[in-house]
């Protein structure tokens, strides 16, 4: 079995060679006073069509259409290659027509969202294994409610056992909102522990106002805070991994629609040039 690094080097190498070939061909055609835009346009459309077909392949898991991993490899490297064909097609200049500008912008957005998606897939997956327990995304609200119920049980039992309301007060002021729903989405995404660190320090400092039994309660609350924060971390990363496609895929469909419109306009106004 090849290592993943070897595969990456091989595929990148092949892409670079293909890109150089495309540039050379474009140069030759330009020198020969031939129009490159028609060929690069059809090529680009075919490549984008193939890239969009990956989503279809994913939905047809029951057909022997090759492994999804092989499709993804093709998807990534052909997508990189489209950047070169796109440049050649536009003659390395931004277009000035409205439809063409929107089309170019859509292409750039799809390309950028794909690159971001690839980065997220490779980096967030690794980070998910570093904190908290492995949880199914759909089960996160259940676990969150479970932690919330446990916290409330701790606080209410404290109220019954002691005359002091210090822990309950702290819960109402500082913790209730935290346990109520998912928090710190963006902080977790950029791997910031600022909130967690601050809250735990605050809880530790608050210990000076508590008696022994309340401090024990606070220790249990600290465990719950950590568990909830880990759950938020899992939610933040898993949601990002799931939802980036909700940007990439609709943009792709929009790109296909505008590409069809562009094709129609180009064909209609080509004036019969072969």
């Amino acid at each position, binding site marked *: *079995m*090849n*290592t*993943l690094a070897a595969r990456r080097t091989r595929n990148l190498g092949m892409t670079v060679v293909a890109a150089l070939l495309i540039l050379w061909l474009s140069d030759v055609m330009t020198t020969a006073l031939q129009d490159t835009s028609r060929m690069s346009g059809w090529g680009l459309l075919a490549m984008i069509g193939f890239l969009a077909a990956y989503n279809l392949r*994913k939905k*047809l*898991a*029951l*057909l*022997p*259409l*090759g*492994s*999804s*991993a092989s*499709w*993804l490899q093709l998807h990534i490297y052909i997508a990189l290659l489209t950047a070169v064909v796109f440049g050649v097609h536009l003659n390395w200049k931004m277009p000035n027509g409205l439809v063409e500008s929107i089309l170019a912008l859509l292409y750039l957005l799809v390309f950028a969202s794909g690159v971001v998606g690839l980065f997220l*897939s*490779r980096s*967030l*997956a*690794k980070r*998910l*294994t570093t904190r908290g327990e*492995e949880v*199914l*995304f759909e089960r996160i609200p259940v676990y969150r409610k479970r932690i919330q119920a446990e916290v409330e049980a701790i606080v209410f039992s404290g109220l019954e056992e002691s005359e002091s309301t210090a822990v309950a007060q702290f819960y109402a002021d500082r913790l209730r909102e935290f346990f109520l729903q998912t928090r710190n989405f963006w902080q977790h995404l950029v791997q910031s522990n600022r909130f967690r660190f601050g809250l735990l320090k605050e809880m530790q400092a608050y210990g000076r106002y508590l008696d022994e039994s309340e401090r024990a309660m606070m220790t249990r609350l600290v465990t719950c805070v950590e568990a909830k924060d880990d759950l938020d971390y899992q939610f933040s990363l*898993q949601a990002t*991994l*799931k939802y980036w496609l909700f940007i990439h895929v609709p943009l792709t469909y929009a790109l296909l629609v505008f590409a069809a419109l562009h094709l129609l306009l180009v064909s209609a106004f080509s004036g019969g040039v072969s």
Partner: protein
Amino acid sequence: MPTFESIQRPERWAVPFSPEMTDADVDRLLTIEPFASLDPTRFRGKVTLRGILKNDTRLVRCQAGDIVVRQGDWGNSAFLVISGNVRVELGSAASLPSEILGRQSVPRKSLFQSIAQLWKKSSEPEVRDVAAYRDDPRIGTRGTGEQTRIYLQDVSTVLSKYKTATIEAGQFFGESAALGRTPRQATVFAERSTQLLEIRWQGLRDLMRRDDGLQKHIDTVFRDRALKWFLLNTPIFSHLGSEDINELVAQATFETHGQYDWAGSFKRLAKEGIDTDLQHEPLIAEEGNHPNGVVIVRSGLARLSRRHEHGHRTTGYLTPGQIYGLDEIIDGWLGKTPKPLTSSLRAIGIANVVTIPTRLIEKLLLEKADRRNLLGRGSSPTDPLANRPKIDTTRINSDFVEFLVENRYVNGTATMLIDMDRCTRCDDCVRACADTHDNNPRFLRRGPIQNNIMVAHACMHCEDPVCMIECPTGAIHRQTEGGQVVINDQTCIGCSACANNCLYNAIRMVEVRHQDGDFIRDDQKHAPIVKATKCDLCSDQLGGPACQRACPHDALIRMDMRDVKQLTDWYTR
């Protein structure tokens, strides 16, 4: 004084094979051969002949056509024909079709059938076609619950159409599979009303120990039928002539280490925690000792370990067909001084091993071998010694090897491993599984994680499938082609024996439904019909396991744990 609850110390026959065996039955058995001529004085202590017959045997009555064992079934017992006779199907091109044996022969779907799954998916979970349970005239079943038996409906046609041999009263069958923990080699059915004595393997082992005739008979049968075939198929002996093979067969010793019911014991041990000193794993050969011979694993699994500080570090594992001790013998032969064993070998659960004496290895292999091949530097790609497989797990983190062996995951031939560093939790694998199984995913993307590798709760299609042992109808079976462990939904009676035996929570019992969502119920008690379900490795689909094909990030693999090289390459990629 401290108080504690006490129970009677569990003993061997606390749970007899059959509670229906009476003293009168035992008295009758003692009057027939081979028990009548056994010397009772050789049965000393608690293990008496009477005790064995009472607790390790049961009487089985079969009607004409009743299938006793099927080729490929796994069982833990041998049979003695008491009265009547049975027929054993002889291997030939025309063998009994799977359907009449109660098995499902599921052909691969055509391209159109694959596409049709897109619109034929049921909206309700676990939908079944009731007609499929009612209308197959080829399958006959008798009895209820665990006594359910599949029978051949037209014995005379079967006898005229297929080549069979008779096993008469007084003869044994099924002993090789029972003692060797290997699949049954042939299908056996009752020709007429027949009474059989089924002896569980522990009882058979004790009878053999105390009766030279029986020992000799079973030993001869085993050596003739199973051992010779096994040695011929062992790569390092594959080039030997028939005379040399016969010498190997004559001098080889065959031993069973560990417990037959290792799955049950493992479940109990797992609750107790890690067994750091490996005291529950019987020692086959110990590090530092002189190698008495080459040990070949015939069935089961074995752990290789080296002493490390106050414990033992697992350095690898052996699966059937793999060899231990050969390198040390070769090193000793080349250096002219004996070399001690560099690691210990222990049975994981149960291991049946064949040992070939060192002297014979030297005579048949080393004396004739090219020295360069022995050193592993030979250029011949076909030389079995030059190309002897190495069990090298050094590139894998030792924690991970310990984890795989400790939890018996090395038993899997299609273990689902997920690299959590690459898995984006997209669940494409689960969706693909559901798509190919009428909207019912057959695994859970959950499971223990070690070194960021998850072993998911999916059927591993074990090398030693303990799930198959107690299935009363043989509904759970290994496919002849491909070797996948699959369940015939038609003959599954929902007894849960397989699910209870499975160590890996890979089998789920489900209540089946009509297309409209109502439960299918039995006609007497009106209780929902329950069926066992599990991963079938997409054996009816084009293209292989959908889960693996659907993973975009190369995170999921169905790993044959017998292939240490593949595992190592995947782990270190």
